[in-house]
């Protein structure tokens, strides 16, 4: 029964990783940009929610509402002012740019908020701590269920956006063939900016759950970037969106089962599964080769 419990906990944790990986996968699938600042952007989102909560005594779930448009705008500007320019110089330059951005965000957060560790768990109220006890060994934490639910809603909404709306179709067309997309009247720069805006906003939602589930400080980003990146790779780089969520779930389950074997193993188990997928003949590595070829 503890194994069943682990798998269920892992699936819910996977929803969280999927949420963090979503924007990363979107930007990589569309522009081949690996955004090394993605984790820090999520943490930035958490800090913005923290700022809102300082002025408005409410729950983080409400405090994120004014933060989302800010993040959309930040994402748009990030693409237009920084990434668009670096994309012109090939694939390596955006990688370096986001690496630098990651350091800048971390240092600015430390300047602005001190290196203290914070959490939004308390402000989230009972949802952060309550759970449904199914049997003796099986309990479902409310925050876990909510995380997974929100992740599914985000992925579903993004899928609907991509398949049913005109901006979504333009995004898919541009991802497949940016040169031809321009020739049929698509402004690829605008498409890229929209995608980055969405990716950054979704990262902020991930940042909110990060801040409720555990604590955060200005340098939390890179750890979560690694988990998000592993989720994307396990799901298959440049594959479908749902595969990214699945990748997050595989990672989450691997981590909780690893933790069950030995409390020191969760992160290691996740890395091992990631490496196995990367090394497998049909795994992420194959896709990575195809992408860079």
């Amino acid at each position, binding site marked *: 029964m503890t194994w069943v419990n682990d798998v269920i906990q892992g699936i819910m944790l996977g929803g969280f990783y999927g949420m963090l990986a979503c924007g990363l996968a979107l930007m990589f699938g569309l522009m081949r940009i690996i955004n090394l600042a993605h984790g820090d952007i999520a943490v930035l989102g958490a800090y913005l929610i923290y700022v809102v909560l300082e002025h408005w005594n409410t729950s983080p779930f409400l405090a994120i509402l004014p933060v989302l448009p800010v993040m959309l705008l930040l994402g748009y500007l990030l693409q237009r002012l920084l990434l668009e320019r670096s994309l012109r110089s090939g694939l390596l330059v955006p990688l370096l740019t986001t690496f630098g951005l990651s350091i800048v965000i971390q240092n600015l957060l430390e300047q602005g908020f001190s290196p203290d560790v914070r959490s939004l768990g308390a402000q989230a109220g009972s949802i952060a701590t309550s759970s449904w006890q199914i049997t003796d060994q099986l309990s479902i934490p409310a925050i876990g269920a909510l995380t997974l639910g929100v992740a599914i809603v985000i992925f579903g909404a993004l899928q609907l956006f991509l398949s049913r709306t*005109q901006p979504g*179709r*333009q995004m*898919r*067309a541009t991802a*497949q*063939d940016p*040169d*031809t*997309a*321009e*020739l*049929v*009247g*698509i*402004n*690829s720069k605008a498409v890229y900016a929209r995608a980055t805006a969405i990716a950054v906003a979704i990262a902020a939602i991930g940042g909110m759950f990060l801040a409720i589930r555990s604590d955060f400080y200005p340098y939390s980003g890179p750890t979560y970037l690694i988990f998000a990146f592993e989720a994307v790779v396990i799901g298959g780089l440049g594959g479908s969106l749902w595969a990214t969520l699945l990748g997050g779930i595989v990672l989450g389950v691997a981590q909780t089962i690893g933790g069950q074997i030995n409390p020191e193993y969760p992160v290691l188990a996740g890395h091992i599964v990631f490496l196995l997928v990367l090394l497998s003949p049909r795994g992420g590595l194959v896709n990575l080769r195809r992408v860079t070829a």
Partner: protein
Amino acid sequence: MSLLDLEQLYLRHGLLEAVRDFTLVVAEGETVALVGANGAGKTTLLRAVAGAHRPSAGRIGFDGADVTRVPAYRRVQMGIALVPEGRRLFPALTVEENLLVAAQRRRPGRWNVDTVIEAFPMLERLRGQRAATLSGGEQQAAAIGRALITNPRLLLLDEVSLGLAPLAVEDVYRSLATVIAEGATVIVVEQDLARAAAVADRVVCMLEGRIVLEGAAGELTREQITEAYFGLRRRGEVEA
């Protein structure tokens, strides 16, 4: 009245000069066939007109305006549409989505998803299919439809018969004849000289990035075009 005005255009691929000192005026309603061997610069020229290739020197005028620095997606709005070599449909999008994506910046006109599918009846049953699963002829029809749906004033066709079965080529050109008859201005790149001469008012023959022969389609003989195509006359001059 001239619709397209190319003045002393130079186009490069890195160090390679693909098109040199190219001057051409295309009148409204005219159909021009560009012929020439592989590497003569035809595709590069069409891409430059569509805005996908930035000239290193020279000027591109369209309908009186200088569009040399206008990005490709805006030229679509102005009425320039390219059917690219190799069709280049979005493979994972359905046929209908391929059309819808291009319809975003369509100019007002008679072409929309329904009229395009009317013009290419073979697309009707393929509407919901991914473009990657289509045959070459079907893909070509969809690619032409995707260009037409923007209601272009200038339609650029790059090797539309390349890699198609003869019957499919017939189909494609039959549909094109309707478009041309309606008064569209068309520049067509075609390897089949007979077909090029049949469809066009004027034939422009390119060699190594330059115009080596130009004339009304009815007045040029096949021999003249062949000579220009392979650069025979020029080589003769060098020897003399």
